[in-house]
């Protein structure tokens, strides 16, 4: 018998492309094309008049970014430093809060309401308003040093003043008070992570705890031998999410600098080159982190 029309396999893959078609159009029109344009910007001198015109300059922009421009490497190092410092603290903090919120006590819904609030208030405007009260740790410290008062919120002003008066160096004071100043930042960017952990903890089968209880395990052992390994996949998700979140944030120094270069100085060549360097570094970091953690991750199913 002759087959009529397409095989099931072919039909299925045709349907797949139909379902993908709007997105595929986007990949070509909105993503691939501008990405290619962005590469050609990175290797060109872009002049913007009515439209834009390109003249090829080779690796000039990359050279400028890495060796001539004084701001990029500094911003880049600061962003990386922030990431290395913040991500572990975010993870520990959100895991701790998730463990606390796991219990079914009176008022737990109120706390859940509050701890998810930062996600709702994740507005750049709101953040910028806060920065009008407080300021970054170093500048408020400078304010203390110079004797000027500041209206810093939730900051360790008194503490750093005290430590400075004790005669400690500025660097040491900053190192000690740094985590205190960062508390607000950490707490507000952990909203989603808390709930990812909470979901993970809630999905641990209770039979495991019962079995451990029968065997005579205490809470400490249960935590390290059951909860922690069972939540390992969530740790992977959260690490990746936190890193991406930090890097993509419009308020991180590199992204602010890129925005300034493009839309204030109209130096599209340099800003594209910086974007590409930045992107490659993110990709490498994510690949390494993913490799390290997923090897150690235990999947129950």
């Amino acid at each position, binding site marked *: 018998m002759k087959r009529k029309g397409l095989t099931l396999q072919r039909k299925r893959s045709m349907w797949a492309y139909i379902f993908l078609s709007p997105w595929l159009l*986007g990949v070509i029109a909105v993503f691939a094309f501008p990405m290619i344009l962005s590469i050609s910007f990175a290797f060109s001198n872009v002049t913007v008049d009515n439209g834009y015109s390109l003249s090829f300059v080779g690796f000039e922009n990359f050279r400028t970014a890495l060796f001539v421009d004084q701001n990029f490497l500094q911003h880049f190092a600061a962003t990386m430093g922030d990431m290395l410092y913040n991500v572990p603290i975010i993870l520990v903090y959100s895991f701790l809060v998730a463990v606390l919120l796991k219990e079914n006590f009176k008022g737990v819904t109120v706390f859940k309401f509050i701890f998810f609030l930062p996600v709702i208030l994740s507005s750049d405007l709101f953040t910028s308003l806060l920065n009008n009260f407080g300021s970054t740790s170093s500048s408020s410290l400078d304010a203390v040093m110079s004797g000027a008062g500041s209206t810093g919120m939730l900051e360790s002003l008194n503490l750093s003043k005290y430590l400075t008066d004790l005669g400690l160096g500025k660097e040491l004071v900053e190192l000690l008070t740094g985590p205190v100043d960062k508390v607000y930042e950490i707490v507000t960017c952990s909203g989603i992570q808390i709930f990812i952990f909470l979901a993970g903890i809630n999905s641990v089968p209770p039979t495991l705890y019962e079995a451990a209880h029968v065997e005579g395990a205490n809470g400490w052992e249960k935590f390290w031998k059951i909860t922690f390994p069972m939540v390992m996949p969530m740790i992977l998700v959260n690490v990746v999410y936190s890193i991406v979140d930090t890097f993509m944030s419009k308020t991180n120094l590199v992204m602010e600098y890129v925005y300034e270069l493009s839309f204030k100085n109209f130096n599209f060549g340099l800003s594209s080159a910086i974007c590409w360097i930045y992107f490659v570094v993110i990709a490498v970091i994510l690949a390494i982190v993913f490799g390290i953690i997923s090897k150690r991750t235990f999947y129950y199913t």
Partner: protein
Amino acid sequence: MNPIRSRKNKQEMLMRLGTVILRTVLLVGFSYIILYPVILMFSKAFMAQKDVFDNSVLWIPRHFTLDNIKVAATTMKYGESLMNSVGYALLGTVLQMIPCLMAGYAFARYDFKGKGLLFAVVVLTIIVPPQQFMTPLYLHLSQFDIFGIIKAVNGGKALNLTATQFPYFLLSLTGFGLRNGLFIFLFRQSFRGVPRETEEAAMVDGANSFRIFWQIMLPGTITVLVTVMLFSFVWQYNDTYYSSLLLNNVRTLPQAYELFDSAITGWKGDLSVSNMLSQYVLDDPKVLSLLRNSAMILIMAPLLGVYAVAQRYFIQSIERSGIVG
């Protein structure tokens, strides 16, 4: 009673009490940090100007006033800006769901050539900073042309689409709006969790793929859909980057806030607001912060209201939706 047993009970009770105290202290402490700016916002927004200069007033306004809010609302043209913000965020949310759901379904359930590669592209769209493709896209749209056709029709001139809302709809409808890569990923995860048997049964009964998608897969993933829609709405409502590029001729709330801010910091006697603004000492940073907080409360109030009403659903759906699996 057995004395050993009772001692053990006592010990256990003390332990439990310790845990409760520790837990409460930690949770209340962290909650305070989160709530501090919100409380401050409410306190400042309703505080009369003279309270700012009164050192004995810290949190609770001595002279309660609605003037700040009124000034902020008028200067920001609040009604119109709010409608624009809510309207575009809602429209964007609904439009974005179409390509994201469809792509998520294709990745979850179909085998086709280039699947691995295309999924890698999804991951790529998540980790590429929006700035990287938005800037060239913006420049491209400022002189839009398809293989010279438009130039030929339009008398040698390329179209400038940046002044229209077209790019916004284009990005939403093709699944490249704010964080849409993440949404595709989440939908794929949740579609994978829908049991295959129902789908196969429907196929045997002769339902075509669209019908399966519409009548079986969609209802199966409704919790995740609602969660993603809420996120999408909140993120777009709060966003300043996409809207500054794509909706720059529409007065959304962030833009209205910028206008308001420049109006109060560089006030040069604009007559339309002069009567109201002239009563403020605009040189003083504390007075400026009163006004800024009032504007911010106007921007945040709708979201806070919706969240307060829908929070139970919002939180539960995230906890249970398998959004993380």
